[in-house]
């Protein structure tokens, strides 16, 4: 069960604004989904190692060799707001 308060808390963590209506709907839908996921708790998972990579591979490291960076105009091309040679955002302190 995931109530409105939890939906709002999680939405805040995920930086997702929700309308009042959406909060209610998500609360119901997420509860249903989580109900299904609860099935996992039926299993005894002590002593089972979690799998993070299905195909076992060793370290895949990169040699420390410089490759050309993007030209700045390319880096900026898709940006919503460029100013002073950088990506402009509302100030975090504002």
């Amino acid at each position, binding site marked *: 069960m995931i109530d409105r308060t939890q939906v709002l808390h999680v939405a805040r963590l995920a930086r997702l604004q*929700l309308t009042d209506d959406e909060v209610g709907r998500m609360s119901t839908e997420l509860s249903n989904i989580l109900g299904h996921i609860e099935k996992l708790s039926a299993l005894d998972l002590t002593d089972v190692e979690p799998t993070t990579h299905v195909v076992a591979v060793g370290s895949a490291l990169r040699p420390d060799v410089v490759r050309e960076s993007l030209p700045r105009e390319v880096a900026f091309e898709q940006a919503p707001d460029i100013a002073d040679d950088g990506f402009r955002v*509302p100030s975090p302190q504002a």
Partner: protein
Amino acid sequence: MTHLTDLTAKTAIDAITSGDLDAAELFDAYRSAAAAEDLNAYTWVADQTPDLGAAAAAPLRGVPLAVKDLFCTAGVPSQAGSRILEGYRPPHTATVVERLAAAGTSLLGKTNQDEFAMGSSNENSAYGPVKNPWDRSRVPGGSSGGSAAAVAAGLAPWALGTDTGGSIRQPAALCGIVGLKPTYGTVSRYGMIAFASSLDQAGPFARDVTDVALLYSHMHGRDPRDATSVGHPEATVLPTAERMDGLRLGVPEDLTGEGVEPGVMAAFEAALQTARDLGASVERVALPHADYGLSAYYVIAPAEASSNLARFDGVRYGRRSGADDLVSMYTKTRHDYFGDEVKRRILIGTYALSSGFYDAYYAGAQKVRTLIARDFTAAFAGVDLIVTPTSPGVAFPLGAKTDDPLAMYLNDYFTVPISLAGLPAISLPCGLSEGLPVGLQLAGPAFSENRILDAAYAWERALAFDSTPSRIGAAR
């Protein structure tokens, strides 16, 4: 006369090689068809036929390729079915797209998909749903619905898709074509807009097994830009098997029955009989934890997605909603430009990773993953390949499941356990139910693509399913 767009890629390549067909003529035929299509399969189509000189000299002879929207393609819209990336043209190209271009394919267009590959019906695309060419009132499956529909309808000879929990196999089944989800890691993920990193895998769609094998043979290979990529231990060879003698097929006893439409089960049973006729043996195998696959999947995939989608913050690219303070800019942008299903999964995933819930949800799901992988290892000690229906049902009407996320998720019941174990699997049309295609799924141990392709090839010949675009639905 035969339609150029009815030719399989291999046939077309042979014709170009022998001089009987001009590569530009083939491209043009597809380009015209794609530009005029009414399935909403494409989100972008090449506006002219490129100079195919170099491509036509390469092994794949300039044959056109449709690419799922989420593969970044330099200078070409790459929107992953999302409003937040509307108009986004990246500076970089996905490794697999580069590899295929080097092998001689030419980019025909970008195909519609569920937003960020989250969906099983293509109804979650911000650019509208895709229609199933077999019945325009039905879904093509998802999330690679545009690619599957395009190939089935003769709008592309073959296409690239991605599969996280079934997103190649299920739409291939619903559209009556062949789709391969390779062993995790064999195809580079570099440049693929990520959904769930530990599960995402690119794969080919085509109208027959030979074309799937041919396209896949040029896709795989270790990529230094993807740390999780692995080299395939063997080259992919074009399948030639005509029989299935000695092949041991396993039908998981824990994964059949319940929830499967009778027509699908009938087509599946008939296909098993065909396999026996070809010399295969069919037996039951135990996959005791496979039934927990969906639960584990619906923790892992959203958790990783919630993290992968954090970069869509309106700062460096993509859409932004205006706001005077930073937090409002973030929350409004993500509210305004993410669709409902994406929001749902971000919330589930954030919840599953949040303080106090991690062990029960994410860590637990990763442990179930271990159990499922062990089940498969044990099963493959007794059988060569595992076979299931690809999807519990045939293509469903548009809108039928949009209000019930859980019902939608059940579409992935057969495909998800294999994804969790990182194993290769193909979906192959095996017949019709209610006049709509039914797919069967054939899975094997890691790196067993050649064996899967060989078995699928022999089976395909015997099943004789007609996937010729111009005759779609002719047998209905």
